[in-house]
C-alpha cells in the first residue's frame, strides 16, 4: 500500500513492477491513469493547476486506500496524484490495484477513483489559451458514482 502526492510525473510500468515484484499471490493488476485534456468547455486549454490541502490529502488517500484493500482483499495497491501546473496530455493521477483475481482488481480501481474524486481535497483550475482561469466545478455524476458503493454493490 502506498500513497504519494507529488509534482513529478510517474511511470506506470515502474510502479507496477514495484508493487508486484516477488508477490506471487497477485494474478490481476488493474490500473487507471487520468490525464489533462486539451479542451476546457470548448476552448483550448493552456494549462491546469492542481491545488491540495497538504496533510489532509495524504490522510484521506490513505483512508480510501485502506478501505479498498479491506473491501476487495487487495494484495497490493498504490495511489499517485500530481499537484502543481500540468499541461495538456500530462498525467494527473495513477491508481493501481492488485488482487488474486480480476474482478476485485477492476472493482477496487473503480472504487478508488470514485472515492478519490469526491473525498480527496484536490482542486483543479483551468487556464485557457486566452489567459482566463476558472476553477473546475464538481460534477454531481461523481457523487452518484460514489454513492453506488454504499449500497453494498461491488
Amino acid at each position, binding site marked *: 500500500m502506498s500513497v504519494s502526492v507529488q509534482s513529478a510525473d510517474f511511470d506506470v510500468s515502474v510502479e507496477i513492477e514495484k508493487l508486484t515484484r516477488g508477490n506471487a499471490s497477485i494474478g490481476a493488476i488493474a490500473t487507471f491513469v487520468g490525464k489533462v485534456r486539451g479542451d476546457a468547455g470548448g476552448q483550448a486549454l493552456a494549462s491546469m493547476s492542481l491545488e491540495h*490541502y497538504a*496533510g489532509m490529502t495524504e490522510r484521506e488517500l490513505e483512508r480510501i486506500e485502506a478501505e479498498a484493500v479491506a473491501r476487495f482483499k487487495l494484495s497490493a495497491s498504490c495511489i499517485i496524484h500530481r499537484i502543481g501546473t500540468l499541461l495538456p496530455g500530462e498525467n494527473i493521477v495513477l491508481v493501481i490495484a492488485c488482487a488474486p483475481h480480476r474482478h476485485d482488481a477492476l472493482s477496487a480501481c473503480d472504487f478508488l477513483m470514485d472515492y478519490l474524486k469526491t473525498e480527496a*481535497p*484536490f482542486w483543479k483550475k483551468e487556464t485557457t489559451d486566452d489567459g482566463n482561469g476558472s*476553477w473546475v*466545478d464538481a460534477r454531481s455524476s461523481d457523487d452518484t458514482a460514489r454513492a453506488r458503493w454504499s449500497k453494498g454493490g461491488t
Partner: protein
Amino acid sequence: MTGIAQSRDITLRYFAWVREKVGHSEERVSIPADIATVADLVAWLQARGDGYAHAFAKPSAIRAAIDQKHVQSSALIHGAREIGFFPPVTGG
C-alpha cells in the same frame, strides 16, 4: 457573554476560490465563545469584510474540515485546532 475570556484561537485555512475571494490562505483568529458550529462560524466570517462576504455568500457551496477531517456544517467546533474551508473537491 462578552466572549473575551472564553474566546478560542483557531487556525483557519482556505483553498481554491474560497482562498482567492478571502484574499489569503491561512490565518489565526480568536473566535467568540458563542460560535458553536461550522455554520455559526461561516455566518461570523461573512461579517468580517467584503472578501469574506463574497467567499461565504452561499454557504451550501462550501465544504469544511475540522482538524483535516471532512465535517457537515452542523458539526461542533469545540476543541478544534484547525478548520479548513473549500469548494467541493475536483481531483482525479
